[in-house]
C-alpha cells in the first residue's frame, strides 16, 4: 500500500506543470527585465514575451546581440526573462501567490493580514502591445492601508519604487516581483516605515510606455 501511495505521489508530481527554477534565477531574471526595457527600446518597441517560444527567444537573442552589441551574460539574462514570462502558467498557481511572486525576486513586506486599514487597488493594465498603464495611476493611502497591485493585462508587470520621500526607511525591495497572470496581486502594507509624502513607482520593462504612477501617504 505504502509503495502504491509513493508511486502515486511521484506520478502526480510528474503530471504537474513544470515551473521554472525561480529562486536561484531570480536575480538574473530581474536583471533581464531591466535590460530588456533598456536595451531593446534603443531601436524598437518591446515585443510581448508570449510572441515567441523559448527556442525562438534563444535564436532571436543571438540575432539581437549582434545588433545591440551587449555582453553574452546580459543577453542571456534578457532571454531568460523572456522565457520565464512567456509561460502559460496555470491560474491556480497565480492565485496561490496572493502577495506577489510568480518570479521570486526579493519581495516587499507583504503582510496583508497585518494591515488594519483599507485595501487600495491599482490595476496593471495593458493591451499587450501599445497601452501599458497603472489604473488609477495616482492614489492616496493612509498608514495602515494596504496598497494592492493587481495584474489584469497580458504582459508581465512589476512595481519598482523610483522615488521615495526623505526620511522613508523602507524595508521592502525597491523592485517588486513580476506578476505573470491575470488575477495575481502584489500587496504593500503602508506601515510606519512609510513617512508622509509622495512615492513614485513604475513597471520596470514598461516605464518607457509611461507605465508609471504615484501613491501619496498621509497619517492614518
Amino acid at each position, binding site marked *: 500500500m505504502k509503495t502504491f501511495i509513493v508511486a502515486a505521489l511521484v506520478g502526480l508530481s510528474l503530471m504537474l506543470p513544470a515551473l521554472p527554477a525561480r529562486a536561484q534565477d531570480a536575480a538574473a531574471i530581474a536583471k533581464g527585465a531591466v535590460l530588456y526595457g533598456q536595451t531593446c527600446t534603443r531601436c524598437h518597441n518591446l515585443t510581448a514575451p508570449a510572441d515567441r517560444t523559448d527556442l525562438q527567444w534563444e535564436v532571436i537573442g*543571438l540575432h539581437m546581440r549582434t545588433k545591440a552589441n551587449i555582453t553574452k551574460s546580459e543577453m542571456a539574462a534578457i532571454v531568460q526573462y523572456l522565457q520565464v514570462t512567456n509561460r502559460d502558467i496555470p491560474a491556480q498557481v497565480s492565485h496561490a501567490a496572493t502577495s506577489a511572486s510568480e518570479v521570486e525576486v526579493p519581495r516587499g513586506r507583504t503582510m496583508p493580514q497585518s494591515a488594519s486599514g483599507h485595501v487600495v487597488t491599482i490595476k496593471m493594465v495593458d493591451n499587450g502591445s501599445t497601452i501599458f498603464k497603472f489604473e488609477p495611476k495616482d492614489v492616496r493611502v493612509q498608514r495602515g492601508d494596504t496598497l494592492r497591485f493587481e495584474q489584469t493585462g497580458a504582459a508581465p508587470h512589476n512595481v519598482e519604487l523610483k522615488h521615495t520621500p526623505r526620511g522613508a526607511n523602507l524595508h521592502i525591495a525597491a523592485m517588486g516581483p513580476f506578476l505573470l497572470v491575470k488575477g495575481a496581486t502584489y500587496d504593500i502594507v503602508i506601515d510606519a516605515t512609510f513617512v508622509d509624502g509622495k512615492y513614485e513607482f513604475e513597471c520596470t520593462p514598461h516605464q518607457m510606455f509611461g507605465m508609471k504612477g504615484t501613491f501619496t501617504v498621509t497619517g492614518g
Partner: protein
Amino acid sequence: MRKINALVAAALMALAVVPATADAQARIPSRADNVGMVAGFGSVGYTWTQSDSSWQNAFEAAISPIFLFKIGDDLLVQSELELGFHDEGTELMVEYAQVDYLGFEKWQLTAGKFLLPFGIFGERIHPSWINKLPGRPITYGEGHGGEAGEGILPILSDVGFMARRTARLTPRWALDLSAYVTNGPSMGMDMAMPGAPPSAPDVAYATTNADINRNKMVGGRIGLVGVGGFEAYLSAYQAKYDKENTLSVAGSSVAFDYRRGQFQVRGEGMTVSQQFDAAGMRATLKSPGYWLQLSQRFGAYEPVLQWSQLMDAKADGMVMKEGREQAAVGLVYWLATSVPVKLAYEFNQSTSDRLMVQWAFGF
C-alpha cells in the same frame, strides 16, 4: 596606406584568433543543437507624388525575410533578403549574409556580408517596422519606390570581417566598439557627357565577392551608450576606389539618440570625401549632410518630424553638386508593437513632394 590597411586587417584577425585560442572549451556543435527560424519585416504602401499640377500615385510593396540559424550555443548564421518591386521588375537584394561567433562574453566576431556599423540609420533603423517614416532621410537617398533620389551614401553593407566589443565604463555607461575590413567600393560607370565640365566619378558601393584593387576598406565605430536613454556614435571608413589604387574615399559620421519617456530625438551628420582627377589635378569632393528626427508618443499615436539636408558638395571651394533639403511630417499609429501604420508628407526641395501611407509589419 596599403601597409596600414594590411596592419589593421592583421590586427583584426589577431583579435579573432587570440580569444578563440583562449577559449579552449569551444566545441563543434552537432546538428541536433541547431535551431532555425524565419523572422523579418515587410511593408505595403501607397505614394502620391506631386508632378507639375497633378499627382501621380502608385502602390508599393516590399518584404525582407531574415533567416536565422543558431548552431550550437554560440554560432549564428543569418541573412536578410530584400524583395522589392520596381519599374524594372522584381529586385532581390542580399542585405546581409553573415556568420557570427558569439561565444565570448564581450567580443563578437562576424564574417561575410554584413551591415556596416556606420552611424545608426543603416544598421539599426532602416527596417520599415522600426523606421518611423515611410521614407528615408535624404542623406541615404529617398528610396522605397516613388521618386528615388540620390543621397550621400546608400545603406552600407560589404563583404569582409568585423570584430565588435562592448566595455562597461560605469554602471550607467558602456562603450560600443566596432572595427571592420571589407572589399570596399569601386568606381562607378562614368556617365559624364563628352565636353561636360569635370566631375567626380560615382563611387559604387555595390557589394561583390571581388575587390577591384589590392586595397581594403577599413572602418570602425565608437559608441557611448548610456542607461538613461542617451547614446552617441563616431564612425569612419576609408578605402581606395580605383583600380590603380590612387583615389581614396572616406566617410565620417556623428550620430546620437536620446529617449526620455515617450519622447525621442535622434540624428546624424556625415561627410564623404572623395578624391578625383580633373584636368590633370587631384581634387577632393566633400559631400556633407545631416538628418534630425523628433517624435513623441501619445498612447498608440506617435507624431514624427524630420529634417534632412544635403549641403552643397564642393571640390576645392567650387560647388559641384547643389544641396537640397527635405522636411517630413508624419503620424504613426501602432496597431501592435511591431505593426505601425504611417502617414507622412515630405516637402522636397528641388524634387517632388510626396504623400505616403505605409503599413509595415515585423514578424
